[in-house]
């Protein structure tokens, strides 16, 4: 039985073959695409749970492909990058990726990352899904929709998990480590850039003025807090 459908988008045929062989051995159903354009077409025709996306590809390129995938889909995205620099990581996460893996990577590490990206928080209770209305912002967790000033945005699964985790513990500072382990999994804890990028992404969607947040507050050196107006 398939544990998930994965689309590998990479211009290198050896990597596509290796990914298909190793991931299918571990129960995943794997399809592949050679370019970003091909990948987008494939994504429209099939239901996938996760995309493994090479950052450096001829044509559209990984970052642009990631943006386009994220703009129309909630599928989990892991970027495969050669450079291990902060700039590249932030660029990948900013484009909408849920995680990144630096090439060359080990198969167990990739499998752990895939599990973390597909990991979902238990669905919140109905009581926690009450729409929140304040400061002209409407957050409806049951439909994963956020409306700010008449403009509606939908949340990616990881953004949704992060927001609902913070919202369920409103007005309480949650540490970086707790957030990373709750949302990505127990192997995570030091990847502060993940939180920075995801919180920024969320602020752009839910804050009337993202540079002066009213809901998603940073508690310096400690963590983040969702400020719920009384």
């Amino acid at each position, binding site marked *: 039985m398939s544990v998930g459908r994965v689309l590998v988008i990479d211009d*290198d045929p*050896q990597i596509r073959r290796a990914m298909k062989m190793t991931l299918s051995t571990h129960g995943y159903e794997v399809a592949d695409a050679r370019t970003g354009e091909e990948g987008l077409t494939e994504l429209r025709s099939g239901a996938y749970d996760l995309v493994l996306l090479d950052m*450096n590809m001829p044509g559209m390129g990984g970052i642009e492909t990631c943006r386009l995938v994220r703009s129309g889909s909630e599928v989990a995205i892991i970027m495969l990058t050669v450079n291990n620099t902060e700039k590249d990581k932030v660029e990948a996460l900013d484009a909408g990726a849920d995680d990144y893996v630096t090439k060359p990577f080990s198969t*167990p590490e990739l499998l752990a990352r895939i599990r973390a990206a597909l990991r979902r928080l238990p669905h919140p209770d109905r009581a926690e899904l009450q729409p929140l209305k304040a400061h002209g912002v409407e957050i409806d967790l049951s439909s994963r929709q956020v409306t700010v000033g008449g403009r509606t945005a939908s949340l990616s699964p990881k953004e949704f998990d992060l927001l609902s985790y913070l919202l369920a513990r409103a007005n309480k500072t949650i540490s970086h480590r707790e957030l990373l382990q709750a949302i990505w999994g127990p192997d995570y804890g030091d990847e502060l850039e993940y939180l920075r990028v995801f919180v920024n992404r969320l602020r752009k969607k839910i804050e009337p003025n993202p540079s002066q947040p009213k809901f998603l507050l940073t508690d310096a050196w400690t963590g983040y807090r969702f400020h719920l107006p009384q």
Partner: protein
Amino acid sequence: MVVHQAIRLSARILASLALIAAITFAFTRLIPVNATTTGFFYLVAILMIATAWGIVESTIASVVAMLCFNYFFLPPIGTLTIADPQNWVALFAFLATSLTASQLSARAKRRTKEAVERQREMERLYSLSRGLLLTDAAQPVGKQIVQQIASVFEFPAVALYDRASGETYRAGTEDLADVETKLRDVAVRSTSLQDSAATVLFTSIRLGGQPIGSLAIQGPALSDAALQSVLNLVAIGLERTLAQQAINRAEVARRSEELKSALLDAIAHEFKTPLTSAKAITTDLLAAPAGELHQHQRDLIGIADESVDRMSRLVSDAIQLARIEGGTFQLNRGVHFPSSLISSALKQMKSLTDGRQINVKVADDLPLVSVDAALIQMVITHLIDNALKYSPQQSAIEIGARSEGSNVIIYVNDRGAGIAEDEQSRIFDKFYRGKTERHLTGTGMGLAIAREIVRAHGGDISVTSRPGEGSQFSFSLPAAKQSSSR
């Protein structure tokens, strides 16, 4: 030139005297009129002389006319004496009127001439400024400047010394002798000098108080204001070119760095892509449950897996070194506590340091350092990695930081085999491989990279070691300045 002017002046004086003589002759011999009419005619003639020529001619004409008036028309006629005292008054009134009128007339004429000259200078300055704005980038700007000045102001010779390039440019129909030495001298001394014999003006060109060159002009003198304007225009013209050249150089350097950076990215990608599929396969096989592979197969795959790791490290280090040496990396500086740099590095090394005794000794109240945290952590992790590799499993490793003058020293001590004295100075060299097994598992680039990173921060790295007792690798980082510490 001066002789020519004297001859012209003499001719005009003679002509003025001739005109007075003609009036005197006409009114004494041809048309006898009274003294008053004659006096008015003299006045009209003097006004005409003042208007047409100048004050010297009109003053001489006034005095001569006064004498003629007295001699020929005021009684007793034929003498220079005056009988009637009223005629004295008339004579002096005539002289005063004629002198005043001639002065006023000459002044008005001079002013008109000056106004015309100013207007002409303005037109020429405008023309020069337009010409300098439309310089051709393909030709030396100094050459175009002197050509413009010579043609606009119709100077027979112009020369310009550009201090930045050291070049002298000339234009005009005449040649200036020994101009280069004088121009350099004037530019260095930042003064002006007038070569009176050749009527050449040498003057320095300054911009923002700094002499940037000098200009020599042969020809009619410009007004001070016009000369200053010409010098300012030349200064701006030269400076504009320098600024443009600086922009061009910066652009070329930027493009070259971008190209190098893109090339290194492409090389990294090309090398790491085949390693990625190899690593995925070896690690997948090694992760297989026990029993699926024979031990022999597992060992062989293990060797392949380690080789892939080593190849990957080599590529990463080579690219990193090329980036640092090629100048295509930039320090992303921030102000950090030395202790947090060490603790972050230790956190990154956690899987390798587990089971080892690590002692951290960071002095209290160390100054902050302004560094690229990721790069300095790379240096620390590399030193820790070396210490772990080359010291016995049960021995302790000490990592610390202390203050020394205006520097912060970060060090890593191990109690390993140590390094022979003759090797100590060479282990930071690229691709240096030690005589012992010490360096066999490394890439031969790690310490070279560490040294380049530390030096890029303005510090240095060194080793002290005694064979059999262990080694201390330490590097210095300048403390952040107080003003930038927060």
